[in-house]
């Protein structure tokens, strides 16, 4: 395994929701990053959004399993300053609170956001003072050929 030099990745709600749905490839990808020592950050509100989307005991267990990974941190929303900052990002970007929490973490720490849907981040990223670094998780082999 090569040494990890990448900054921590922030997982957005689309990725966390895929975990809650039990998507084997996304779970395998997260396990792969964890195994190679890549630091991952999951916003607490992204978990709330995923939990709202996928209800059930298995989803709860899959989301709870995130806490058991060695290199993954659940980022809480702490204190009035962070809460007010989150509200500011929601007001500026129109993001829902779940993804706004990811944006707030990534914006402060300059971490890339991993998502399954880069398109939804384009406008919110442009609405912020500094654009976010959005990285899409996708399989290049599955892309539709462009004419």
């Amino acid at each position, binding site marked *: 395994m090569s040494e990890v030099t990448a900054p921590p990745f922030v997982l957005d709600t689309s990725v966390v929701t895929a975990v809650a749905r039990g998507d084997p490839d996304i779970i*395998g990808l997260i396990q792969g990053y964890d195994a190679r020592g890549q630091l991952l950050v999951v916003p607490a509100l992204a978990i709330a959004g995923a939990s709202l989307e996928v209800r059930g005991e298995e989803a709860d267990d899959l989301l709870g399993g995130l806490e058991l990974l060695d290199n993954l941190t659940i980022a809480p929303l702490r204190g009035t300053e962070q809460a007010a900052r989150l509200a500011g990002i929601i007001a500026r970007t129109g993001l829902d609170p779940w993804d706004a929490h990811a944006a707030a973490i990534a914006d402060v720490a300059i971490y890339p956001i991993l998502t399954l849907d880069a398109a939804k981040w384009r406008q919110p990223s442009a609405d912020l003072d500094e654009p976010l670094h959005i990285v899409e*998780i996708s399989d*290049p082999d599955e892309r539709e050929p462009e004419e």
Partner: protein
Amino acid sequence: MIILTYDSSMSDRKSRLTITVDPDLTTYAERLVESGHAASVSAAFNEAMAEKVYRDRRRRGLWKAKGDEADPGRVARMMTHVDRQLAGE
């Protein structure tokens, strides 16, 4: 916060440790003992920790089972694609 001494003399295999517990949890554990739902405060905390062990084990097992279903080739391609984006390619 209070200091609770965890002490079980029921078995030589159990160990003694000192833990700091929130007051409301201690109160609840004492109520369990008073109502006959736990043999002792130590037993109540022991049971709670055993339950966490069981839950974490179940969650690890579920993650492993899902991970085992993953397509390694697709996962590798997705990771490479992420790496390329991070490298600005």
